[in-house]
C-alpha cells in the first residue's frame, strides 16, 4: 500500500489587510514505506509548513495529501481519524515536545492507552520494547525528561511516535538541536528504524550533509517549490539545479584544510511577493533572459532525477549547471 503522497500542495497563510503568504506554492512529494525522503532548504523555504500540511496540522489551500490511499483531513479539535494514526510526527525540540512533569513511560503509554493498542497489563512490556527500539534501557520509563540528554530526549520523542505503530513518520528538524555525537547517533537510529520497521520517513532538515547520509532521496525546496529531487548521493555528486549546487558548496568541510565555504549571495525573498520567472533567478549566477520571465516546471530528467531549471532539458545528457550552458541557451535562437 502506498505511503504518504502530496500532490501540488499549496499552503497559504492569511494576513489581515495584506496579501496572503504562499508558504508552499505547489509541491509534490512521495514517501513510500521503508524509504527515507529528505526535504532540505533554507529557513523560510516552506519545508516546515509542508511537513505540517502533510500530517494535517495546517490545511492546504489546494492540492491533495493522501496517506495510505485516504485523504489526510486537517486536524480538528477531535481525535486524529483512526485511519491516520499510523502517520506520526516528531518535532525539532525534544525539550518542548515532551511534558516535563510526567514520567517518560507515562508519556509513551498515553499513546498506547488512547489508541487501545495494549491492555493495561501489556503496557509496561510494550513501553520497555519501544524504549529498546530507540536504544534506551527499560529503566528510562521511570525517569522524567529533564534527567535525559538532548539526544536521549529525542529518542524518547521517537519512541512515543513509534507507540502508534506508524507506517510513516514526518520528522521536522529532528537533528538540529543536537550535538555532533548525538546527531550521528539519532541519524543512525532513524536509518535502522526505517529498515527494520519498514517505516517511511520524511526528514525535514536544513543540513544537507547529514541528510545525504540518512536519506535515500532528497527534495530540495526553494521559496515554496521543489527545485530538485534526486537520490541523495547523486544529488551531492552532480547537482542539477544551481540552488542545490549552492547549498552543497556552502557546507564547510571539517578536514583542517582551511577551505572557505561558498557564500550564496542574497536572501530568500518574501514569499508573499515571489520574483517573476524562476524564483531563484535573482540569486542565481547562471540566470539568463528566460529565467527572468518564465517559471520552469519540475521535469524528470533521468530515472529518479528531476529539476526545475531552464538549464536542464529532458533528453539532454545530465550536466551540472555551468556558465557555458547558460550562455549557449541565452543566445537568441538557441534551442528551447
Amino acid at each position, binding site marked *: 500500500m502506498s505511503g504518504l503522497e502530496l500532490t501540488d500542495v499549496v499552503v497559504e497563510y492569511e494576513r489581515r489587510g495584506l496579501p496572503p503568504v504562499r508558504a508552499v506554492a505547489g509541491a509534490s512529494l512521495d514517501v513510500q514505506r521503508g524509504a527515507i525522503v529528505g526535504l532540505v532548504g533554507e529557513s523560510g523555504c516552506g519545508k516546515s509548513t509542508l511537513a505540517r500540511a502533510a500530517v494535517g496540522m495546517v490545511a492546504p489551500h489546494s492540492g491533495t495529501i493522501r496517506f495510505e490511499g485516504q485523504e489526510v483531513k486537517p486536524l480538528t479539535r477531535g481525535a486524529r481519524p483512526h485511519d491516520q494514526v499510523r502517520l506520526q510526527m516528531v518535532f525539532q525540540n525534544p525539550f518542548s515536545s515532551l511534558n516535563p512533569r510526567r514520567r517518560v513511560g507515562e508519556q509513551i503509554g498515553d499513546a498506547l492507552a488512547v489508541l487501545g493498542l495494549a491492555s493495561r497489563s501489556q503496557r509496561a512490556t510494550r513501553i520497555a520494547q519501544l524504549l529498546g527500539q530507540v536504544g534506551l534501557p527499560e529503566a528510562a520509563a521511570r525517569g522524567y525528561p529533564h534527567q535525559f*540528554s538532548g539526544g536521549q530526549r529525542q529518542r524518547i520523542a521517537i519512541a512515543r511516535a513509534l507507540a502508534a505503530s506508524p507506517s510513516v513518520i514526518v520528522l521536522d528538524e529532528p537533528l538540529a538541536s543536537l550535538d555532533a*555525537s548525538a546527531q*550521528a547517533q539519532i541519524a543512525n537510529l532513524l536509518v535502522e528504524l526505517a529498515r527494520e520497521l519498514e517505516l517511511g520517513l520524511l526528514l525535514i532538515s536544513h543540513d544537507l*550533509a547529514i541528510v545525504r547520509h540518512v536519506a535515500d532521496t532528497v527534495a530540495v525546496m526553494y521559496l515554496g517549490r521543489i527545485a530538485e529531487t534526486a537520490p541523495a548521493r547523486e544529488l551531492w555528486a552532480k547537482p542539477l539545479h544551481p540552488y542545490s549546487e549552492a547549498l552543497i558548496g556552502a*557546507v564547510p568541510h571539517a578536514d583542517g584544510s582551511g577551505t572557505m565555504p561558498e557564500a550564496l549571495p542574497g536572501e530568500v525573498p518574501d514569499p508573499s511577493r515571489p520574483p517573476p520567472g524562476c524564483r531563484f533567478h535573482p540569486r542565481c549566477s547562471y540566470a539568463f533572459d528566460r529565467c527572468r520571465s518564465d517559471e520552469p516546471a519540475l521535469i524528470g530528467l533521468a530515472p529518479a532525477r528531476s529539476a526545475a531549471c531552464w538549464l536542464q532539458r529532458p533528453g539532454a545528457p545530465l550536466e551540472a549547471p555551468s556558465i557555458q550552458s547558460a550562455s549557449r541557451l541565452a543566445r537568441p535562437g538557441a534551442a528551447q
Partner: protein
Amino acid sequence: MSLLDVDGLRVRLQTPDGAATVVDGIDYRVEPGEVFGIAGESGSGKTMSVLALMGLLPQAAAVEGRAVFDGQDLLRLPPSKLRRICGRELAMVFQDPMTSLHPMLSIGTQLTDHVRLHLGLGRRAAAELAVEALREVRIPDPESTLKAFPHQFSGGMRQRIAIAVALACRPKLLVADEPTTALDVTVQAGIIRLLDRLRNESGLTIVLITHDLGVLSSIADRVAVFYAGRVVETGRRPDILGHPRHPYTRGLLDALPHPEAAATPLIAIQGAPPTPRHVPPGCAFHPRCAYARPSCAEAIPPLVPVNGRALACPVDPLRTGAPS
C-alpha cells in the same frame, strides 16, 4: 606577547543541587591577529570560560586563575574598570541575534550608544562611525538601516548588524560565541567569509566558539577542543582537525557527515557527555573512549606538549595503534 593569556581558569557555579565545576583548569593563549577556535559539545564549558573573562557570570560563581588581556588580569579588575574594557577593547557576539539585539531600539541607537559612551563621541560623529561599521559588514544602504529595527532584517543580516555593533569601537579582540549556529549554511558561509576578511583587513583577533568543526576548519588558525570543562587537545588547525590524536577529537570528526565519504552509517561516539556535577573520575572521556585503559579512570591526564600540539591523553591512540 599574547593578546590574551588564560591560565588555570576554573569556574564553579552554584546550582540548586550544589556546586558544579563547569570549567576545570583551562590554559590557552591567543596571539594578535589570529582566529582561535574553541570546540566542544554543549556543556563542555566553552561559553562559561569566556563569560568568566568578561565578568558576565552570576554573582555566586567562583572564578579562579588568571586571564591577562593586553597586560591586565581581567579576573582581578574592579567592575568599573572591566566595564570600560568590555565593549571597547574586548567585544562579544552571541549566538542568537534575535535576542542579542534589542527589539524595540533602532539599529542606530544600538550602534551609537556604546560608541558615545566608550569613545566620548558626539551624536553626529557616532552616527558616521555607525554607518562605516555597517558598511564594513556589508549591509546594503547603511544610512536607512540606522533608522530600522531588528525585526526588519533576516537572521543573517541581524548577525551582521550584531557584529557591526561589536566592532564599532574597534576592539582588539572579538569573542564570537556560536555566531553561525542559528543561521542557514548559505548565510553561515557569508559570516565566515566576513570574519575572515575582518581579520585580514583590520588585524582583528577573534576567539571563535563553536561546536561546528567545519566552521573552525574554514577559518581558525589554532584550535582548542574542550571536554567536560577541560582542554583535551590544542594546536594548529591543520594538525588538530586534519590529524586528530585525542580519541575525543577523533570521535567528533568521525561523527560528522563527511561530504566525500560514501560510508553510512555515521560513526557516533557512544553515550553522552557528562553533566558538570557528574564528571567521571580520571580522564572524563574514558567511559566513552574505545581506547580506554584501567589507568584512565584513575588520574586526570595532564595536557602535555607532543610534537607541536598539546594533548591530554597518555594512550595517544595514533601512536599506539588500534584499540586493544
